[in-house]
């Protein structure tokens, strides 16, 4: 697959306009003409970009696509300090993720430009216009596209989007904020973008933060080209980190042996490793029991639970994600430290035994 060329039918790529002047900005701002990619892509795939047997228009188109892609690659390489030719989604290294763009249709032209910029750098883009097909359950598809496959969620705002009282974008934002709350705060994922000097909605995203508090990128005014380049860099850095994770050395490391039979004095799962283990401070949330959780804990669906989520590392290397779910009955019986975002140093079993374990009458 040619880097930067989408396989989606109906997608187009920028093939014309004045010469590119600097970084990614000119890719955003210049006028363009478009050629359907499917024919170009198939030809490249089957015959290679220099095939003499191709029709003239296809050969020219391929040359221009390759030239454009080559330029984008060199700009990316320059900004990231990687060799030219390096591609975040290179051969045999395809990643399942994409950038999800959430917008209102009044901003379609701006979004078209943003999409071309991202795809020129080899980044896949998910948009409702290209990725939803007749007969599909669009709510389920959008949920999957946001919560399972999105490397980055770009939320586009403008005076037009803010003026809309009802929009599918609002539903997408709700899903995205739910997903954001589950993610590690240090991992960039949701990027607000403004197409004009509008306000970013002050939506609560948890832990005292709002959508407006996330660093945004403005795609208007003098700094628009620079900001577009920064968006591309951000996405590629995420791809770069994931690409590095596929290193075969990962699988060659000695496995960690975890003894699940564990101690009779605690129900925590510990390992027998010699290197130091560390745990993050827990992220504590009050949650409604899902159908699965309700079944596991034999409680009613929708009952309140305390969830404590921690990241566990061995010798500073990522090792496991742990989430424990406790009935609110423990809290009501006095085990209020379950709600504190701090580790319980004496051990959870000891703490619960001292405060609530024997007093729980019914868990709901």
């Amino acid at each position, binding site marked *: 697959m040619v880097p930067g060329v989408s396989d989606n039918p109906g997608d187009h790529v920028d093939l014309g306009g004045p010469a590119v002047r600097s970084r990614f900005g000119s890719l955003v701002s210049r006028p363009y003409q478009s050629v359907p990619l499917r024919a170009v892509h198939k030809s490249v795939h089957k015959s290679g970009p220099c095939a003499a047997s191709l029709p003239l228009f296809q050969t020219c188109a391929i040359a221009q696509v390759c030239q454009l892609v080559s330029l984008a690659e060199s700009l990316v390489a320059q900004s990231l300090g990687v060799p030219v030719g390096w591609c975040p989604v290179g051969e045999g290294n395809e990643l399942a993720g994409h950038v999800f763009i959430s917008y209102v249709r009044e901003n379609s032209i701006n979004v078209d430009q943003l999409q071309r910029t991202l795809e020129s750098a080899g980044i896949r883009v998910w948009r409702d216009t290209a990725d939803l097909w007749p007969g599909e359950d669009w709510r389920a598809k959008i949920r999957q596209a946001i919560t399972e*496959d999105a490397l980055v969620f770009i939320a586009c705002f403008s005076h037009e989007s803010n003026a809309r009282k009802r929009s599918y974008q609002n539903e997408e934002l709700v899903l995205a904020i739910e997903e954001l709350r589950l993610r590690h705060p240090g991992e960039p994922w949701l990027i607000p973008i403004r197409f004009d000097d509008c306000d970013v909605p002050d939506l609560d995203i948890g832990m005292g933060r709002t959508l407006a508090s996330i660093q945004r990128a403005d795609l208007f005014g003098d700094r628009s080209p620079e900001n577009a380049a920064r968006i591309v860099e951000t996405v590629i850095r995420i791809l770069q980190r994931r690409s590095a994770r596929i290193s075969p050395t990962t699988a060659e490391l000695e496995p960690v042996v975890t003894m699940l039979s564990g101690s009779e004095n605690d*129900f925590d799962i510990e390992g027998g490793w010699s290197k130091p283990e560390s745990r993050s401070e827990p992220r504590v949330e009050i949650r409604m029991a899902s159908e699965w959780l309700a079944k596991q804990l034999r409680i009613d669906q929708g009952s309140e639970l305390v969830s404590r989520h921690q990241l566990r590392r061995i010798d500073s290397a990522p090792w496991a994600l742990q989430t424990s779910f406790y009935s609110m009955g423990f809290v009501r019986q006095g085990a209020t430290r379950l709600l504190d975002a701090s580790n319980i140093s004496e051990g959870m079993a000891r703490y619960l035994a001292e405060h609530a374990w024997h007093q729980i009458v019914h868990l709901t």
Partner: protein
Amino acid sequence: MSTSRDEIGVRKPDSNEAAFLQIPDDGRVQVLEVNRTVFDERDIPALLTVIVYQANRNRVAYEQRIRRP
């Protein structure tokens, strides 16, 4: 006296797990999910812990005491 029950399964990581464990999120590297349910004296589930490991870097082991017949 409380008891616990472990359920172990292998599945594709979600994007959040893949990001933390530094593995691809397309399923080439699977994750091992251990669900430990702890029961109180009346055998009622009291809490559930879900732990997700990178499957190709972890092994789980049990030890069981066997009394002489």
